[in-house]
């Protein structure tokens, strides 16, 4: 493609000077972006092996920061919470999103309005979502109080202040915020199913439910995997929502990895351990993303060979 300009016969250096603005415009932003990603990752990984506390210092402590983070109660609770929150949130938002997509796919009136309603929470910040749900779920002023005021004295809904259930309030708020995303992708998938396949199934005598179950839903697998990966990516790095909704409480019952990282880095000034926790988060993320990347690679190869 570059031989198109070879008709120009200027000395190479003056050509370079003439094209300097172009090189700058292409390379400076891309290099800044690439360089910050690589150097920041390497630097954080390096710090995680140093005895840094208040300020970064050189030195080598091997895996000591990692073992101390992994042994801390804070991290263990955060990790357990992540497993529970991650799986519950992803599964429930998949089910909700798929159900909404199937319902919207039934040629119903007002589809556009309904779709906008299911998607608007995505435009709102996690801070706003967390704040609003912290009011609704607060037994003293929210849903429980309303039920009591209406005369249902035995009604109990105190998950927000209940150590065992508080993590579920984050699940609820996260589903409210982002199941619309799953819906949007599933709906796009449903709409792109080949009409002929559906007709063929109907001619074979399959009812609407059977058609869905046997013919349409199986085509949604690739979308499902994409949705799962993106939602997991959100779950692993969830911070704002928890900060606004429970701030990790009651106690440290709703601690999540991102909160542990922040706490170590900026509240306890344990830079080495904070960096180690951040690297652990990255490893958890890679455990999700690498299989996904491999799957995508295989899919693409099959697509090009087909």
């Amino acid at each position, binding site marked *: *493609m570059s031989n198109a300009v070879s*008709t120009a016969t200027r000395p190479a250096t003056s050509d370079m000077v003439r094209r300097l603005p*172009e090189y700058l*415009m*292409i390379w400076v*932003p*891309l*290099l*800044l972006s*690439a360089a910050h*990603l*690589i150097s*920041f*990752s390497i*630097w*954080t990984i390096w710090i995680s092996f140093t005895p840094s506390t208040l300020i970064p210092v050189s030195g080598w402590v091997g895996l000591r920061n990692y073992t101390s983070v992994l042994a801390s109660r804070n991290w263990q609770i955060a990790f357990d919470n992540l497993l529970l929150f991650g799986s519950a949130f992803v599964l429930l938002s998949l089910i909700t999103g798929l159900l*909404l997509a199937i*319902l919207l796919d*039934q040629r*119903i009136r007002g589809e556009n309005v*309904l779709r*906008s*309603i*299911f*998607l608007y929470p*995505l*435009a*709102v*910040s996690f*801070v*706003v*979502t967390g*704040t*609003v749900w912290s*009011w*609704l779920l607060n037994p003293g*002023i*929210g*849903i429980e109080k*309303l039920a009591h*005021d209406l005369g249902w004295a035995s009604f109990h809904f105190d998950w927000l202040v209940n150590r065992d259930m508080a993590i579920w309030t984050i699940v609820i708020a996260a589903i409210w915020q982002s199941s*619309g995303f799953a819906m*949007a*992708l599933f709906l796009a998938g449903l709409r792109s199913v080949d009409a002929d396949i559906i007709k063929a199934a109907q001619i074979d005598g399959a009812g609407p439910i059977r058609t869905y179950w046997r013919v349409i839903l199986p085509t949604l697998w690739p979308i499902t995997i*994409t949705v799962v990966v993106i939602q997991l990516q959100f779950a692993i*790095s969830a911070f*704002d929502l928890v*900060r*606004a909704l429970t701030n990790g409480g009651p106690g440290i019952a709703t601690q999540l990895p*991102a909160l542990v*990282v*922040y706490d170590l*880095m*900026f509240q306890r000034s344990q830079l080495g351990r*904070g960096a180690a*926790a*951040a690297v652990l*988060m*990255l490893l958890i*993320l890679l455990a999700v993303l690498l299989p996904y990347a491999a799957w995508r690679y295989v899919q693409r190869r099959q697509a090009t060979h087909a």
Partner: protein
Amino acid sequence: MRDRAFAPSRILIYLVVTLFAAAYLAPLVVVVLNSLRTNEEIAQGSMIGWPKHLAWGNYALAWSGFCVAETCAGIRPYMLNSALITIPATIFSTLLGAIAGYAVSLWRFRGDNWIYGIVTLGLFLPQQMRLLPWTFVLRDIGLINTLSGLVLIHTIQGLSFTVLFCRNYYVAIPHELISAARIDGAGFFRIFWRIILPLSSPILIVTVIWQFTHIWNEFLYGVTFTTGQQQPVTAALIALSAAIADIPQHGVQSAAVIIAALPTLLIYLLGGRYFVRGLTAGAVK
């Protein structure tokens, strides 16, 4: 098609969909209603209720009256901060992303695939891996606790998204268009200005909406790199809830929440179609 409007299954579908819609709308409705109730009225009952009389004063207080920490200027300075961070960072990252996206997809240069691959890794690298380095970079260049510092961060980090969006859009433009223009002697910028940019409005709208929404709603960097009067509105909302936890003013707080959420909600209402395209474009990375 036979008329199935009154079949029981249709009624069930409408019923379920309506219930879901009500559940999704409920939090917004509750906050809007609360923003119009007095603090006393809410304190007597619950957060969920109909205003007895409309307390518009909540909005005035939320906008410029109530106190966060020692300053009593309402949410206005923080809204201004968010605007001063979001608008420049959105413009810079979109413009640079469009040029870079054009360069890697149509202009082509040695190493383009490599650098593009690395840049898009930014979609996956957790913020936590960049928190400490940004802290020291901002400190070294004197931008810690400044709005410019956040503009810089969001511009550089936003590039991962904007380059991806624009590149994926531009690869569909026929390459012959560019080759022909190059033979005619048109340079990099001329082709961008004359050929690429006029074709770009859909993707630029998607990118601007995506960037604006994300930067406006961002919290972690805002709360880490700025304090007090320099904070964006998301961080200020958290500071506000903490500051008045002892004597809650839920009416005023609700008004503040509505004001803080309004810019992105308005953008969503006006450009919903493009908003959804951004979501799905980001998903098919």
